[in-house]
């Protein structure tokens, strides 16, 4: 993890972690997963710490996951979201940051529509900053929980063949996963029309395939991204129907597969678009596993950042 200004430890991007950071968080998440299986799902590790969930973009899943993680570590949690806050009244991020500093909190978990906003926050607050998704940039805890889920199920990460399918261009989940998977030695192929790929993506050391059929039968893990209808209006592809035709994990494709890959999705799934409903039912356990892993992983992150002295 990176030391930020003032010696606070932050989790801003997978790109700034090294392989050992990633693996040690995954190891420690394993221990935290056990806490969530107890009858008393709570340990006193972060007693007396205060964590602010600063969510400037709608999110239920990630916010709940961070909140549960914090509470299971006995930290106090304050939620601050744009719909209820003064941000909608035009207050600047910097002013919000100053308010947070005045409240004397220990960490800010920030979700923001603008790439780089969490990094900017580190200049303005005097506490740890955790990126819970910034624009199209990164969503580091999602990638870590995805790796955790893969490793729990397949027993390894190195050498695995992972295909990520869908709207790579707009996806912070894809970016963080690419960084994370490459760091731990997995092979990554991106599957999307060029109109949904960001420029020069190959420089991130990944391969590119044009349709889902090119990777089925090859990949160990098939990671489907959520496709959004508004991309049709941006002329990124002609129609959802055509998307399904070329990139959808349809029942026909699924049932033909001898070697069925582990299917992942950051949720919520668009049934009938990126995945057929029957296939979704088949693979639902992995996807709910991702959600459960999310709490454990975020506990590991919070504990790593806050559970020790600075320096």
């Amino acid at each position, binding site marked *: 993890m990176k030391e930020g200004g003032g010696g606070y430890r932050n989790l801003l991007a997978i790109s700034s972690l090294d392989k050992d950071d990633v693996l040690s968080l995954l190891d420690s998440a394993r221990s935290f997963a056990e806490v969530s299986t107890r009858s008393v799902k709570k340990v006193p590790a972060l007693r007396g710490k205060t964590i602010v969930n600063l969510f400037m973009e709608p999110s239920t899943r990630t916010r709940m996951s961070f909140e549960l993680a914090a509470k299971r570590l006995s930290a106090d949690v304050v939620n601050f979201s744009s719909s209820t806050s003064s941000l909608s009244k035009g207050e600047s991020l*910097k002013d919000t940051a100053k308010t947070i500093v005045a409240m004397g909190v220990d960490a800010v978990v920030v979700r923001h529509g603008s790439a*780089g906003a969490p990094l900017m926050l580190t200049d303005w607050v005097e506490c740890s900053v955790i990126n819970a998704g910034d624009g199209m940039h990164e969503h580091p805890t999602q990638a870590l929980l995805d790796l955790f889920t893969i490793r729990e199920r397949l027993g390894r990460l190195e050498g695995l063949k992972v295909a990520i399918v869908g709207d790579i261009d707009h996806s912070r989940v894809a*970016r963080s996963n690419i960084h994370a998977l490459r760091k731990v030695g997995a092979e990554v192929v991106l599957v999307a029309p060029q109109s949904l790929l*960001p*420029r020069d993506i190959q420089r991130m050391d990944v391969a590119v395939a044009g349709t889902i059929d090119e990777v089925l039968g090859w990949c160990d893990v098939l990671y489907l991204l959520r496709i959004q209808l508004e991309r049709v209006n941006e002329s990124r592809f002609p129609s959802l129907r055509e998307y399904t035709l070329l990139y959808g994990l349809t029942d026909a494709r699924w049932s033909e597969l001898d070697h069925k890959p582990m299917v992942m999705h950051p949720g919520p799934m668009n049934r009938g678009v990126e995945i057929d409903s029957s296939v979704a039912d088949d693979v639902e356990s992995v996807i709910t596993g991702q959600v459960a892993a999310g709490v454990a992983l975020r506990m590991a992150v919070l504990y790593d950042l806050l559970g020790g002295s600075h320096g």
Partner: protein
Amino acid sequence: MADSILIKGGRALTFPGGLTGEVDIMVEAGRIKQVEAGINAGGAMVIDASGCVVAPGLVDMHVHLREPGMEYKEDIASGSRAAARGGFSAVFCMPNTEPPVDNLSVAEYVYDRGVDEGFCMVLPHGAITVGRRGETLAPMGEMAACRAGVMGYSDDGDPVANSEMMRRAMEYARTIGALIISHSEERSLSDGGQMNEGYYSTLLGLRGIPGEAEQIGVYRDICLAEKTGATLHLAHISTSGSVELVRSAKRRGVRVTCEVAPHHFSLDDSMLTSYDTNLKMNPPLRSRGDVEALMEGLADGTIDVIATDHAPHASHEKETEFDRALFGVVGLETCLALVMTKVVDSGVLSLEDAIARLTEAPARIMSMERWGYGTALEEGDDANLVVFDPEQRWTVDPGEFMSRSRNTPYAGWDVRGRVQHTLFKGRLVVIDGELAEGTR
């Protein structure tokens, strides 16, 4: 204040002529009286210029001094002082003020404010279209005939989106002997963009502005200039593709010139990993390869002019999320040092050729002899001079800027080449690097 000033022991840089040996320059009653070695000071105030270069005052074809309308960012008082401190004797203000310079009264207002302040010539460019809205032609003839003598026309900040409008503007400008300055940008490709489209925009998750957005604009305006015979100047070109388009247009004899801003040759998009909003400008910082192509363009003369695109913004407009921050950086007070450090030191251009891009070339394009501005440093010319030490190293401290805004990406940079003195119409407006207030 002494009416005559003797600048002693500097090397004069003249166009034509180039760099001389050590000479003395006597300035009297606002004009150059004598350029010779060993002039007797007599009663003149003596300025020691040993080790320095004495060049014609610099000319910046592209600044935004924000007055009228956005004085909280900059005004002509602060902007013209920043210019003088940067060694400039003339700056051309883009018309995107509020109200814009699309009629003679705003043009004369800007001109008069510059005269009032007296630190350098503040000369407005006019808008091509009324309100810069791209719909109807602004009264170019009227603005050209007024005392501001507007010669360059641009909707800078925005492109003229409609090609028919641009064509007519060029035809009309040609008739009245005016220059069209193109802000070349195909907005349907750049809309929503925050930085150069490429590996780094992908890495940072920031929406990209492809080089093609600029090049399509550049190519369109070159085609239109070729067709209409108009004189075209391309503002702030930033990509290798643009350099190549201009190079080939010049080869064909199109009457086109272009400029590059110091930030485009001194910085590149890999630096944006800091999400520093002081690195956000339009056109955006491009790739390493583009920077190299711009240097080649400077070296082979494809790029005629270095202009700052000085674009001040208040701190609250920059200290915000990257995609909410405004585009632009200040540049007047760092320009000469960046040219010395990045262009001259690296051997891209000789000192003479580099300074020509800041004096002789813009003066020629903007017909500066109208304003009594000459680059030959001949007897009788207005004494618009910059005395700078090409070797002096200094560290950029935005806190010392005369500009009202501090949005510079160069804070803390160690650079070489510092303005010691600036004379404007024979008056010392900058002495020993500091503004000479109250000298009038």
